[in-house]
């Protein structure tokens, strides 16, 4: 039964991802060269699979919050009209499977433009928050890294040699004969799966503004067509080829993360999710996003 459930779930997951897989098959066909194929299709798949999904979850969340607020206001009005003492009442809870949307559940994978001219060459300069670093000038002393790495090797070896307990489950067997038999087996015996983040840990720089939080980026690109024109022109002006190249070759700012039409206030996970929602809902913004994805090369699927 578990197999069947797992298989059907897998199938539906695969359906979701098939489109993106097909669209990106072009990437595999392209492995032997750099000519872009079906990239617009791929970007559409990204929008469909990821951004639309986030937009729909965020919108659901918004409508639930609005409904809850309205319910609460109605209850308060009713209480006031009846002249009774104000009682705190919770808004109705939404029934159904919808889980609460939280930006904490997401991690952002940043995928970069290449230097190879699949489109125009490019790279990115990230800016991050340094405020508070000066207050951390006192560094605690930890054991040297070489000691850590010696231990690490032992730990990994031990973990890999523990063949009797492929998932740690058989490892609990001797407990039956010991006084510790009442102890619950470990919840995460597979060491390739992490334990849950301890509850007392605060969200890091990717989620809340703090030291090292990314704040902005500048995307640079080299407009190859323009560079070649300038280079040819400089050659015609009797410049030496290397001089002409030095004069013509330059990177320019393609855009910044805070530029129109979708300026991001910062680069926290919630900002990316908000951008995903905008990209899902606004075709004009989407067009700009795709043009930037292709480094303003004007690329279109054939």
């Amino acid at each position: 039964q578990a197999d069947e459930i797992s298989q059907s779930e897998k199938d539906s997951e695969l359906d979701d991802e098939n489109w993106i897989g097909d669209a990106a098959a072009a990437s595999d066909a392209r492995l032997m060269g750099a000519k872009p194929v079906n990239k617009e299709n791929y970007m559409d798949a990204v929008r469909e699979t990821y951004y639309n999904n986030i937009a729909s979850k965020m919108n659901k969340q918004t409508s639930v919050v609005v409904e809850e607020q309205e319910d609460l206001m109605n209850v308060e009005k009713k209480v006031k009209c009846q002249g009774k003492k104000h009682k705190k009442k919770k808004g109705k809870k939404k029934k159904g499977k919808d889980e609460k949307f939280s930006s904490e559940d997401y991690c952002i994978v940043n995928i970069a433009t290449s230097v190879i001219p699949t489109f125009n060459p490019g790279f990115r300069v990230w800016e991050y928050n340094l405020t508070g670093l000066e207050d951390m000038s006192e560094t605690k002393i930890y054991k040297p890294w070489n000691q850590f790495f010696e231990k690490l090797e032992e730990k990994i070896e031990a973990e890999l040699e523990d063949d009797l307990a492929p998932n740690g489950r058989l490892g609990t067997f001797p407990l039956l004969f010991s006084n510790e038999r009442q102890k619950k087996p470990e919840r995460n015996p597979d060491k390739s799966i992490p334990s849950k983040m301890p509850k007392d840990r605060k969200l890091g720089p990717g989620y809340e503004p703090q030291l090292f939080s990314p704040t902005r980026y500048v995307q640079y690109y080299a407009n190859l067509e323009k560079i070649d024109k300038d280079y040819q022109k400089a050659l015609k002006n009797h410049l030496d080829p290397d001089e002409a190249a030095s004069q013509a070759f330059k990177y320019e700012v393609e855009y910044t993360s805070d530029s129109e039409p979708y300026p991001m206030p910062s680069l926290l996970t919630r900002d990316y999710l908000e951008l995903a929602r905008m990209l899902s809902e606004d075709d004009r913004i989407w067009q700009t996003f795709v043009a930037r994805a292709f480094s303003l090369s004007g690329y279109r699927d054939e």
Partner: protein
Amino acid sequence: RYKGASPRKLHGRFLHITDMHPDPYYKEGSSISRVCHRGKPKDEKDSAARFGDATAGCDSSMDLMNYTLKWIVDNLRDKIDFIVWTGDNIRHDNDRNVPRTEAQIFDVNEQVSHLFEKLFGKHDSIDPHDFDVPVVPSIGNNDVFPHNLFSLGPTLQTRELYNIWSSFIPQEQQRAFARGASFFVEVIPGKLAVLSINTLYLYKANPLVDNCNGKKQPGYQLLLWFGYILEELRSRGMKVWLSGHVPPILKNFDQSCYDKFTLWTHEYRDIIIGGLYGHMNMDHFVPVNSKKAWKSVTEQSLALA
């Protein structure tokens, strides 16, 4: 590593550069339809420009790489704190007349490495690990031979790669690197690290990757390393950027590797700032959902049970 070194002035900026694919066979004025290696162009549009032609399908000319790095040195070197460099430092295997060899792949990687050392290293220091701008490279699927295939170390490839990157990799990580070709650099000592993750162990196009569940799987072993490193960085109060060549999305990773990798990034969200990847040549972002990953891992465990 930084003992005795005066503290660097920080600017709050860093560079991410990827997929340079320099091609020593690139010839200006050759035919684009013959991968810019040879032949008379059919017309003006078919002629390979000195710095390349967008969307034409050729690799980078050596000039494109050299002038790019020169531009970075002239305009950014003094304004950035570190460089994340996510691989693919050699041409594609797209010309039957000149197939790539392992020696050639290492050779060009070595040349590019030397260039980074020369441009961003600290010239007055006797310590080769001392950089004005620390550089954190990671391995691309084109940097290995055969294409995409990379096995668990220690192997000749991991040893050769260590030799090429020895100035970028902290010495105490030599053995760990020999095993998994991953490492990290404290780009701001004691405060901020960049992890260079060998994503080829999670990449489904690597014929040696079946899943991340078996202990002999390279991905499983990579995740063990990943977990111990993250835990240690957390205990030291450090924050970390993840970096690697192949982006951790379902299209690229085996399902179990994708799920487990996503879980680690989620459960260490108190220290992980984000992830920087290359490989796909397009500027975009993908939000990955950890709840979905937890669900998938639980179901897989159920099925296994």
